[in-house]
Protein backbone atom coordinates (compact mmCIF):
# COMPACT_ATOMS: atom_id res chain seq x y z
CA UNK A 1 0.00 0.00 0.00
CA UNK A 2 1.29 3.38 -0.91
CA UNK A 3 0.24 6.59 0.69
CA UNK A 4 -0.30 8.75 -2.33
CA UNK A 5 -0.08 12.23 -0.97
CA UNK A 6 1.97 13.93 -3.60
CA UNK A 7 2.14 13.61 -7.34
CA UNK A 8 5.20 11.51 -8.19
CA UNK A 9 4.91 12.62 -11.82
CA UNK A 10 3.75 10.05 -14.31
CA UNK A 11 6.54 10.89 -16.72
CA UNK A 12 9.02 10.45 -13.90
CA UNK A 13 7.63 7.00 -13.13
CA UNK A 14 7.83 5.89 -16.75
CA UNK A 15 11.25 7.29 -17.48
CA UNK A 16 13.03 5.51 -14.65
CA UNK A 17 13.45 2.40 -16.81
CA UNK A 18 15.47 4.50 -19.28
CA UNK A 19 17.42 6.29 -16.54
CA UNK A 20 18.24 2.95 -14.95
CA UNK A 21 19.53 1.59 -18.26
CA UNK A 22 21.75 4.63 -18.78
CA UNK A 23 22.95 4.37 -15.16
CA UNK A 24 23.72 0.69 -15.72
CA UNK A 25 25.90 1.51 -18.71
CA UNK A 26 27.69 4.32 -16.85
CA UNK A 27 28.36 2.16 -13.79
CA UNK A 28 29.49 -0.77 -15.93
CA UNK A 29 31.90 1.29 -18.00
CA UNK A 30 33.29 3.04 -14.92
CA UNK A 31 33.83 -0.31 -13.24
CA UNK A 32 35.55 -1.59 -16.37
CA UNK A 33 37.80 1.46 -16.65
CA UNK A 34 38.72 1.08 -13.01
CA UNK A 35 39.66 -2.56 -13.50
CA UNK A 36 41.75 -1.74 -16.57
CA UNK A 37 43.54 1.08 -14.77
CA UNK A 38 44.25 -1.10 -11.78
CA UNK A 39 45.57 -3.85 -14.03
CA UNK A 40 47.84 -1.43 -15.84
CA UNK A 41 49.01 -0.11 -12.53
CA UNK A 42 47.83 3.48 -12.62
CA UNK A 43 45.00 3.43 -10.23
CA UNK A 44 44.42 6.87 -8.83
CA UNK A 45 45.51 7.71 -5.30
CA UNK A 46 42.62 7.78 -2.97
CA UNK A 47 41.58 11.40 -2.78
CA UNK A 48 40.83 12.82 0.59
CA UNK A 49 37.11 12.82 0.87
CA UNK A 50 34.85 14.36 3.43
CA UNK A 51 31.98 12.08 2.55
CA UNK A 52 31.81 8.31 2.96
CA UNK A 53 30.53 5.88 0.39
CA UNK A 54 26.91 4.89 0.09
CA UNK A 55 26.96 1.81 2.33
CA UNK A 56 25.31 1.91 5.72
CA UNK A 57 26.58 -0.55 8.28
CA UNK A 58 24.09 -2.74 10.08
CA UNK A 59 23.54 -2.14 13.76
CA UNK A 60 25.65 -5.02 15.01
CA UNK A 61 28.76 -3.62 13.40
CA UNK A 62 30.78 -0.96 15.13
CA UNK A 63 29.35 2.51 15.32
CA UNK A 64 31.15 5.44 13.85
CA UNK A 65 31.53 8.47 16.02
Amino acid sequence: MHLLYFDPGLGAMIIQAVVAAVAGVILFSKGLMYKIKTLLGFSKNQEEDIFDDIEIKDQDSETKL
Partner: protein
Amino acid sequence: MIDNSKHASSFRDPSGYIFTEEGVIKRAIFPIYFKQYNALTSSGFFDSLFKNKLLVPHSEITKTEDKIVIQPDNIPFITYPYEWSFNMYKEAALLTLKLQKYSLEKGFSLKDATAFNVAFHEGKAIFIDTLSFDFYQENTPWRAYKQFITHFLGPLVLAHYHGAQSLKLMSNFIDGIPIKMLASMLPFKTKMNPFLYSNIHLLAKFEDKHNEDYKGESKATALSKKGQLNIIQSLYDYIKKLSLKEHSEWGNYYDKTNYSTDAFVEKSAIIDMWIENVQAKTLIDVGGNDGTFVRKINTDLKQALVCDIDNNAVDFNYKTIRENKETFITPFVLDVLNPSAAIGFQNKERDSFINRMKDFAPDVTLALAVIHHMSLSGNVTFEMSAQFFASFSKHLVIEFPKRNDSWVQRLLNSKVDFKDHFDWYSLENFEAAYTTYFEVIEKKPIANSERVMFLLKPKHVK
Protein backbone atom coordinates in the same frame (compact mmCIF):
# COMPACT_ATOMS: atom_id res chain seq x y z
CA MET B 1 1.53 26.49 29.23
CA ILE B 2 0.24 23.45 27.41
CA ASP B 3 0.50 23.95 23.72
CA ASN B 4 -0.82 20.82 22.14
CA SER B 5 -0.73 22.24 18.66
CA LYS B 6 -0.09 20.57 15.38
CA HIS B 7 2.99 21.94 13.66
CA ALA B 8 2.15 24.09 10.65
CA SER B 9 4.50 22.19 8.33
CA SER B 10 3.01 18.82 9.17
CA PHE B 11 0.00 18.29 6.96
CA ARG B 12 1.22 16.68 3.75
CA ASP B 13 1.75 13.17 4.98
CA PRO B 14 -1.40 11.38 6.24
CA SER B 15 0.71 8.89 8.24
CA GLY B 16 0.90 11.21 11.20
CA TYR B 17 1.80 14.69 12.32
CA ILE B 18 4.18 16.66 14.48
CA PHE B 19 2.96 18.62 17.46
CA THR B 20 4.40 20.56 20.34
CA GLU B 21 3.49 19.68 23.90
CA GLU B 22 4.81 21.94 26.62
CA GLY B 23 7.53 23.08 24.29
CA VAL B 24 8.60 19.53 23.37
CA ILE B 25 8.32 18.29 19.80
CA LYS B 26 6.44 15.01 19.44
CA ARG B 27 5.13 12.96 16.58
CA ALA B 28 1.76 11.24 16.42
CA ILE B 29 1.35 8.21 14.16
CA PHE B 30 -2.00 7.06 12.79
CA PRO B 31 -3.15 3.44 12.31
CA ILE B 32 -2.62 3.79 8.55
CA TYR B 33 1.14 3.74 9.25
CA PHE B 34 1.21 1.21 12.15
CA LYS B 35 2.23 -1.69 9.95
CA GLN B 36 5.22 0.19 8.57
CA TYR B 37 6.18 1.61 11.95
CA ASN B 38 6.09 -1.77 13.64
CA ALA B 39 8.10 -3.42 10.87
CA LEU B 40 10.72 -0.66 10.92
CA THR B 41 10.99 -0.93 14.69
CA SER B 42 11.01 -4.71 15.10
CA SER B 43 13.40 -5.39 12.22
CA GLY B 44 16.06 -3.18 13.79
CA PHE B 45 15.91 -0.81 10.82
CA PHE B 46 15.37 2.28 13.00
CA ASP B 47 18.01 1.18 15.52
CA SER B 48 20.59 0.70 12.82
CA LEU B 49 19.97 4.20 11.47
CA PHE B 50 20.07 5.68 14.99
CA LYS B 51 23.41 4.02 15.67
CA ASN B 52 24.85 5.33 12.44
CA LYS B 53 23.48 8.78 13.33
CA LEU B 54 21.56 9.03 10.08
CA LEU B 55 18.03 9.34 11.46
CA VAL B 56 16.96 11.42 14.42
CA PRO B 57 16.49 8.96 17.34
CA HIS B 58 13.10 8.74 19.00
CA SER B 59 11.51 7.00 21.94
CA GLU B 60 7.98 5.71 22.09
CA ILE B 61 5.82 7.62 24.57
CA THR B 62 2.40 6.06 24.24
CA LYS B 63 0.87 3.32 22.12
CA THR B 64 -2.87 2.86 21.81
CA GLU B 65 -5.09 1.33 19.17
CA ASP B 66 -5.66 4.58 17.39
CA LYS B 67 -2.46 6.51 17.98
CA ILE B 68 1.22 6.01 18.66
CA VAL B 69 3.18 8.96 20.00
CA ILE B 70 6.94 9.14 19.69
CA GLN B 71 9.36 11.79 20.90
CA PRO B 72 12.34 12.52 18.68
CA ASP B 73 15.56 13.92 20.16
CA ASN B 74 15.58 17.67 20.21
CA ILE B 75 17.48 19.46 17.45
CA PRO B 76 18.11 22.93 18.86
CA PHE B 77 18.07 24.79 15.56
CA ILE B 78 16.67 23.70 12.21
CA THR B 79 18.35 25.07 9.09
CA TYR B 80 16.62 25.01 5.72
CA PRO B 81 18.00 23.99 2.30
CA TYR B 82 18.25 27.63 1.19
CA GLU B 83 20.56 28.23 4.15
CA TRP B 84 23.00 25.43 3.38
CA SER B 85 26.42 25.80 1.86
CA PHE B 86 27.27 23.74 -1.22
CA ASN B 87 28.86 20.84 0.65
CA MET B 88 26.12 20.81 3.25
CA TYR B 89 23.61 20.51 0.42
CA LYS B 90 25.68 17.73 -1.09
CA GLU B 91 25.77 15.84 2.17
CA ALA B 92 22.00 16.12 2.55
CA ALA B 93 21.57 14.69 -0.97
CA LEU B 94 24.00 11.85 -0.32
CA LEU B 95 22.31 11.05 2.97
CA THR B 96 18.95 10.73 1.22
CA LEU B 97 20.44 8.36 -1.38
CA LYS B 98 22.21 6.32 1.28
CA LEU B 99 18.93 5.89 3.11
CA GLN B 100 17.11 4.86 -0.06
CA LYS B 101 19.73 2.25 -0.87
CA TYR B 102 19.67 0.87 2.65
CA SER B 103 15.87 0.90 2.61
CA LEU B 104 15.74 -1.07 -0.64
CA GLU B 105 18.10 -3.66 0.76
CA LYS B 106 15.84 -4.10 3.77
CA GLY B 107 12.56 -4.15 1.85
CA PHE B 108 11.61 -0.52 2.39
CA SER B 109 11.62 2.61 0.24
CA LEU B 110 11.58 6.34 0.89
CA LYS B 111 8.15 7.59 -0.10
CA ASP B 112 9.36 11.16 -0.38
CA ALA B 113 12.69 12.87 -0.90
CA THR B 114 12.25 16.50 -0.01
CA ALA B 115 15.30 18.46 1.09
CA PHE B 116 13.30 19.66 4.10
CA ASN B 117 13.52 16.12 5.53
CA VAL B 118 17.14 16.79 6.38
CA ALA B 119 18.57 18.94 9.17
CA PHE B 120 22.08 19.53 10.48
CA HIS B 121 22.85 18.39 13.98
CA GLU B 122 26.10 17.72 15.82
CA GLY B 123 28.20 18.53 12.81
CA LYS B 124 26.45 16.41 10.22
CA ALA B 125 23.33 15.92 8.17
CA ILE B 126 20.56 13.93 9.79
CA PHE B 127 17.22 12.74 8.44
CA ILE B 128 14.34 14.03 10.50
CA ASP B 129 11.22 12.60 8.89
CA THR B 130 10.75 9.28 10.67
CA LEU B 131 7.56 8.48 8.76
CA SER B 132 9.14 8.72 5.30
CA PHE B 133 9.84 5.00 5.08
CA ASP B 134 7.31 2.73 3.42
CA PHE B 135 7.32 -0.88 2.23
CA TYR B 136 9.06 -1.49 -1.08
CA GLN B 137 6.81 -2.98 -3.75
CA GLU B 138 8.69 -5.36 -6.03
CA ASN B 139 9.43 -4.01 -9.50
CA THR B 140 8.06 -0.53 -8.94
CA PRO B 141 9.98 2.63 -9.76
CA TRP B 142 10.99 5.05 -6.99
CA ARG B 143 8.03 7.28 -6.25
CA ALA B 144 10.24 10.03 -4.89
CA TYR B 145 12.61 10.05 -7.87
CA LYS B 146 11.29 13.27 -9.40
CA GLN B 147 11.27 14.91 -6.00
CA PHE B 148 14.89 13.94 -5.50
CA ILE B 149 15.82 15.53 -8.84
CA THR B 150 13.95 18.79 -8.19
CA HIS B 151 15.06 19.06 -4.55
CA PHE B 152 18.64 17.82 -4.72
CA LEU B 153 20.24 17.05 -8.06
CA GLY B 154 18.73 20.13 -9.75
CA PRO B 155 19.87 22.75 -7.23
CA LEU B 156 23.32 21.14 -6.98
CA VAL B 157 23.86 21.06 -10.74
CA LEU B 158 22.67 24.67 -10.99
CA ALA B 159 25.16 25.60 -8.27
CA HIS B 160 27.89 23.82 -10.19
CA TYR B 161 27.21 25.81 -13.37
CA HIS B 162 25.98 29.12 -11.96
CA GLY B 163 27.49 29.39 -8.47
CA ALA B 164 26.43 28.53 -4.96
CA GLN B 165 23.98 31.41 -4.84
CA SER B 166 21.62 29.35 -7.02
CA LEU B 167 20.89 27.28 -3.92
CA LYS B 168 18.90 30.25 -2.64
CA LEU B 169 16.31 29.50 -5.32
CA MET B 170 14.90 26.88 -2.98
CA SER B 171 13.40 29.64 -0.84
CA ASN B 172 10.97 30.30 -3.67
CA PHE B 173 10.29 26.72 -4.67
CA ILE B 174 9.23 24.84 -1.58
CA ASP B 175 8.64 21.72 -3.65
CA GLY B 176 11.83 21.82 -5.65
CA ILE B 177 12.97 23.65 -8.77
CA PRO B 178 10.36 23.07 -11.54
CA ILE B 179 11.90 20.46 -13.82
CA LYS B 180 11.25 22.31 -17.07
CA MET B 181 12.79 25.49 -15.76
CA LEU B 182 15.71 23.52 -14.39
CA ALA B 183 16.38 21.92 -17.78
CA SER B 184 16.16 25.29 -19.51
CA MET B 185 18.70 26.85 -17.14
CA LEU B 186 21.42 24.30 -17.83
CA PRO B 187 24.01 24.95 -20.55
CA PHE B 188 23.54 23.12 -23.86
CA LYS B 189 26.54 20.89 -23.29
CA THR B 190 24.72 19.15 -20.43
CA LYS B 191 22.60 17.47 -23.11
CA MET B 192 25.73 15.65 -24.27
CA ASN B 193 26.23 14.14 -20.84
CA PRO B 194 24.27 10.86 -20.66
CA PHE B 195 23.79 11.18 -16.91
CA LEU B 196 22.44 14.74 -16.99
CA TYR B 197 20.54 14.12 -20.20
CA SER B 198 18.61 11.17 -18.80
CA ASN B 199 18.09 12.50 -15.26
CA ILE B 200 17.15 16.07 -16.17
CA HIS B 201 16.51 16.82 -19.84
CA LEU B 202 14.71 13.60 -20.68
CA LEU B 203 12.81 13.72 -17.40
CA ALA B 204 11.63 17.25 -18.24
CA LYS B 205 10.47 16.06 -21.66
CA PHE B 206 8.62 13.05 -20.27
CA GLU B 207 6.97 15.09 -17.57
CA ASP B 208 5.87 17.61 -20.17
CA LYS B 209 4.51 14.90 -22.44
CA HIS B 210 2.54 13.11 -19.76
CA ASN B 211 1.27 15.97 -17.69
CA GLU B 212 -1.94 16.18 -19.66
CA ASP B 213 -2.79 12.56 -19.21
CA TYR B 214 -5.72 13.29 -16.91
CA LYS B 215 -7.36 9.96 -17.59
CA GLY B 216 -4.36 8.05 -16.35
CA GLU B 217 -4.04 6.16 -19.61
CA SER B 218 -0.28 5.81 -19.63
CA LYS B 219 1.03 3.13 -17.34
CA ALA B 220 4.09 3.37 -15.17
CA THR B 221 6.58 0.80 -16.36
CA ALA B 222 8.10 -1.83 -14.14
CA LEU B 223 11.58 -1.33 -12.79
CA SER B 224 13.62 -4.05 -11.14
CA LYS B 225 15.24 -3.44 -7.78
CA LYS B 226 18.62 -3.78 -9.47
CA GLY B 227 17.60 -1.07 -11.94
CA GLN B 228 16.56 1.24 -9.14
CA LEU B 229 19.78 0.56 -7.26
CA ASN B 230 21.69 1.51 -10.41
CA ILE B 231 19.87 4.87 -10.50
CA ILE B 232 20.64 5.47 -6.82
CA GLN B 233 24.30 4.50 -7.18
CA SER B 234 24.88 6.64 -10.28
CA LEU B 235 23.21 9.63 -8.59
CA TYR B 236 25.43 9.06 -5.57
CA ASP B 237 28.63 8.83 -7.63
CA TYR B 238 27.80 11.93 -9.64
CA ILE B 239 26.79 14.10 -6.68
CA LYS B 240 29.75 12.99 -4.58
CA LYS B 241 32.13 14.26 -7.26
CA LEU B 242 30.24 17.49 -7.97
CA SER B 243 32.15 20.66 -7.12
CA LEU B 244 31.77 24.39 -7.52
CA LYS B 245 33.50 26.12 -10.38
CA GLU B 246 34.02 29.32 -8.43
CA HIS B 247 37.10 29.47 -6.27
CA SER B 248 36.72 29.47 -2.61
CA GLU B 249 39.31 31.87 -1.30
CA TRP B 250 37.98 32.02 2.15
CA GLY B 251 40.81 30.09 3.74
CA ASN B 252 43.09 33.06 3.89
CA TYR B 253 40.44 35.65 4.73
CA TYR B 254 42.06 36.62 7.97
CA ASP B 255 45.39 37.20 6.24
CA LYS B 256 43.72 39.88 4.17
CA THR B 257 42.12 41.79 7.00
CA ASN B 258 43.69 44.75 8.66
CA TYR B 259 44.39 43.04 11.94
CA SER B 260 47.80 42.92 13.41
CA THR B 261 48.44 39.59 15.11
CA ASP B 262 48.35 41.30 18.51
CA ALA B 263 44.98 42.89 17.88
CA PHE B 264 43.61 39.57 16.63
CA VAL B 265 44.80 37.78 19.75
CA GLU B 266 43.48 40.51 22.01
CA LYS B 267 40.10 40.48 20.32
CA SER B 268 39.68 36.74 20.77
CA ALA B 269 40.88 36.96 24.37
CA ILE B 270 38.23 39.60 25.12
CA ILE B 271 35.51 37.46 23.54
CA ASP B 272 36.68 34.40 25.42
CA MET B 273 36.67 36.24 28.75
CA TRP B 274 33.22 37.73 28.25
CA ILE B 275 31.71 34.40 27.17
CA GLU B 276 33.10 32.87 30.33
CA ASN B 277 31.81 35.72 32.49
CA VAL B 278 28.24 35.39 31.27
CA GLN B 279 28.49 31.58 31.43
CA ALA B 280 27.15 31.15 27.94
CA LYS B 281 26.13 27.71 26.70
CA THR B 282 24.58 28.75 23.42
CA LEU B 283 25.49 31.49 20.99
CA ILE B 284 25.04 32.80 17.51
CA ASP B 285 27.85 34.45 15.61
CA VAL B 286 26.24 36.77 13.05
CA GLY B 287 28.67 37.30 10.20
CA GLY B 288 30.91 34.64 11.71
CA ASN B 289 32.85 33.88 8.51
CA ASP B 290 34.43 30.45 8.83
CA GLY B 291 33.94 30.18 12.58
CA THR B 292 37.47 31.29 13.51
CA PHE B 293 36.44 33.28 16.58
CA VAL B 294 33.98 30.69 17.85
CA ARG B 295 36.77 28.09 17.79
CA LYS B 296 38.93 30.36 19.95
CA ILE B 297 36.38 30.29 22.78
CA ASN B 298 37.56 28.07 25.63
CA THR B 299 34.22 27.77 27.42
CA ASP B 300 32.34 24.56 26.59
CA LEU B 301 29.47 25.53 24.36
CA LYS B 302 26.47 23.30 23.83
CA GLN B 303 25.47 24.85 20.55
CA ALA B 304 27.05 27.60 18.48
CA LEU B 305 25.36 28.85 15.33
CA VAL B 306 27.71 30.51 12.87
CA CYS B 307 26.11 32.26 9.95
CA ASP B 308 27.53 34.34 7.14
CA ILE B 309 26.33 35.81 3.87
CA ASP B 310 29.15 34.12 1.96
CA ASN B 311 28.38 30.56 0.92
CA ASN B 312 32.11 29.87 0.54
CA ALA B 313 32.89 30.96 4.09
CA VAL B 314 30.11 28.76 5.43
CA ASP B 315 31.35 25.91 3.28
CA PHE B 316 34.88 26.34 4.56
CA ASN B 317 33.52 26.30 8.11
CA TYR B 318 31.52 23.18 7.36
CA LYS B 319 34.53 21.35 5.93
CA THR B 320 36.51 22.27 9.05
CA ILE B 321 33.71 20.89 11.23
CA ARG B 322 33.79 17.63 9.27
CA GLU B 323 37.57 17.36 9.41
CA ASN B 324 37.77 18.08 13.14
CA LYS B 325 34.60 16.08 13.88
CA GLU B 326 33.23 19.02 15.83
CA THR B 327 29.71 18.58 17.13
CA PHE B 328 28.75 21.91 18.65
CA ILE B 329 28.80 24.21 15.60
CA THR B 330 25.94 24.52 13.12
CA PRO B 331 26.90 26.74 10.20
CA PHE B 332 24.45 28.30 7.78
CA VAL B 333 24.16 30.95 5.09
CA LEU B 334 22.34 34.11 6.09
CA ASP B 335 22.14 37.61 4.73
CA VAL B 336 21.52 39.73 7.77
CA LEU B 337 19.99 42.42 5.54
CA ASN B 338 17.53 39.89 4.15
CA PRO B 339 17.15 37.03 6.61
CA SER B 340 15.17 33.92 5.59
CA ALA B 341 11.46 34.62 5.54
CA ALA B 342 8.64 32.37 6.68
CA ILE B 343 7.35 30.45 3.66
CA GLY B 344 4.80 27.84 2.65
CA PHE B 345 1.09 27.60 3.32
CA GLN B 346 -0.12 30.51 5.45
CA ASN B 347 3.54 31.53 5.67
CA LYS B 348 3.92 28.96 8.38
CA GLU B 349 5.52 25.83 7.00
CA ARG B 350 9.10 27.03 7.22
CA ASP B 351 9.79 29.51 9.94
CA SER B 352 11.54 32.82 9.54
CA PHE B 353 15.04 33.37 10.83
CA ILE B 354 13.77 35.85 13.43
CA ASN B 355 11.21 33.40 14.85
CA ARG B 356 13.68 30.57 14.99
CA MET B 357 16.10 32.89 16.79
CA LYS B 358 13.47 33.81 19.35
CA ASP B 359 12.92 30.11 20.07
CA PHE B 360 16.61 29.34 20.14
CA ALA B 361 17.23 32.35 22.43
CA PRO B 362 21.05 32.26 22.45
CA ASP B 363 22.88 33.25 25.63
CA VAL B 364 25.17 35.44 23.56
CA THR B 365 25.04 37.04 20.14
CA LEU B 366 28.38 37.84 18.56
CA ALA B 367 28.41 40.62 15.98
CA LEU B 368 32.06 40.99 15.08
CA ALA B 369 33.10 43.24 12.24
CA VAL B 370 29.55 43.33 10.95
CA ILE B 371 28.07 46.66 12.09
CA HIS B 372 29.97 48.70 9.48
CA HIS B 373 28.64 46.43 6.74
CA MET B 374 25.10 46.74 8.01
CA SER B 375 25.37 50.50 8.45
CA LEU B 376 27.42 51.49 5.41
CA SER B 377 26.56 48.84 2.82
CA GLY B 378 23.01 48.30 3.98
CA ASN B 379 22.18 51.88 5.09
CA VAL B 380 20.74 50.37 8.27
CA THR B 381 20.77 52.98 11.02
CA PHE B 382 22.24 52.24 14.46
CA GLU B 383 18.75 52.52 15.90
CA MET B 384 17.51 49.78 13.54
CA SER B 385 20.39 47.38 14.08
CA ALA B 386 20.19 47.88 17.86
CA GLN B 387 16.51 46.98 17.74
CA PHE B 388 17.29 43.91 15.61
CA PHE B 389 19.95 42.54 17.96
CA ALA B 390 17.91 43.37 21.07
CA SER B 391 14.97 41.34 19.74
CA PHE B 392 16.64 37.96 20.28
CA SER B 393 19.84 38.39 22.32
CA LYS B 394 20.36 37.86 26.02
CA HIS B 395 23.82 39.37 25.66
CA LEU B 396 25.43 41.08 22.73
CA VAL B 397 29.15 41.16 22.03
CA ILE B 398 29.59 43.74 19.31
CA GLU B 399 32.69 45.11 17.68
CA PHE B 400 32.60 48.68 16.45
CA PRO B 401 35.17 49.76 13.86
CA LYS B 402 35.66 53.51 14.15
CA ARG B 403 35.57 55.91 11.25
CA ASN B 404 39.32 55.74 10.73
CA ASP B 405 39.37 51.98 10.35
CA SER B 406 40.63 51.06 6.91
CA TRP B 407 37.62 48.86 6.11
CA VAL B 408 35.26 51.65 7.10
CA GLN B 409 37.24 54.05 4.94
CA ARG B 410 37.03 51.64 2.04
CA LEU B 411 33.26 51.29 2.40
CA LEU B 412 32.88 55.05 2.73
CA ASN B 413 35.04 55.77 -0.32
CA SER B 414 32.97 53.40 -2.41
CA LYS B 415 29.98 55.67 -1.73
CA VAL B 416 31.66 58.51 -3.68
CA ASP B 417 29.25 61.50 -3.68
CA PHE B 418 26.96 59.84 -1.23
CA LYS B 419 29.74 59.70 1.36
CA ASP B 420 28.55 62.76 3.32
CA HIS B 421 25.28 61.02 3.99
CA PHE B 422 27.16 58.75 6.40
CA ASP B 423 28.47 61.46 8.71
CA TRP B 424 26.38 59.78 11.39
CA TYR B 425 28.73 56.81 11.43
CA SER B 426 30.65 57.54 14.62
CA LEU B 427 31.34 55.91 17.96
CA GLU B 428 29.31 58.57 19.80
CA ASN B 429 26.19 58.01 17.70
CA PHE B 430 26.63 54.25 17.97
CA GLU B 431 26.75 54.40 21.75
CA ALA B 432 23.83 56.81 21.93
CA ALA B 433 21.61 54.54 19.82
CA TYR B 434 22.65 51.27 21.42
CA THR B 435 22.28 52.50 25.00
CA THR B 436 18.60 53.14 24.27
CA TYR B 437 18.15 49.38 23.96
CA PHE B 438 21.08 47.99 25.91
CA GLU B 439 23.01 48.65 29.04
CA VAL B 440 26.78 48.59 28.66
CA ILE B 441 28.34 45.93 30.84
CA GLU B 442 31.85 46.38 29.49
CA LYS B 443 33.63 48.40 26.86
CA LYS B 444 37.16 47.71 25.68
CA PRO B 445 39.11 49.27 22.84
CA ILE B 446 41.38 46.83 21.02
CA ALA B 447 44.96 48.11 21.22
CA ASN B 448 46.70 48.99 17.94
CA SER B 449 43.44 49.08 16.05
CA GLU B 450 40.55 51.41 15.34
CA ARG B 451 38.09 49.02 16.90
CA VAL B 452 36.13 48.94 20.16
CA MET B 453 34.47 45.91 21.75
CA PHE B 454 31.24 46.14 23.74
CA LEU B 455 29.47 43.66 25.99
CA LEU B 456 25.84 44.71 26.13
CA LYS B 457 22.69 43.47 27.78
CA PRO B 458 19.23 44.34 26.47
CA LYS B 459 17.29 46.54 28.86
CA HIS B 460 14.12 44.45 28.71
CA VAL B 461 15.90 41.33 29.97
CA LYS B 462 15.88 40.99 33.73
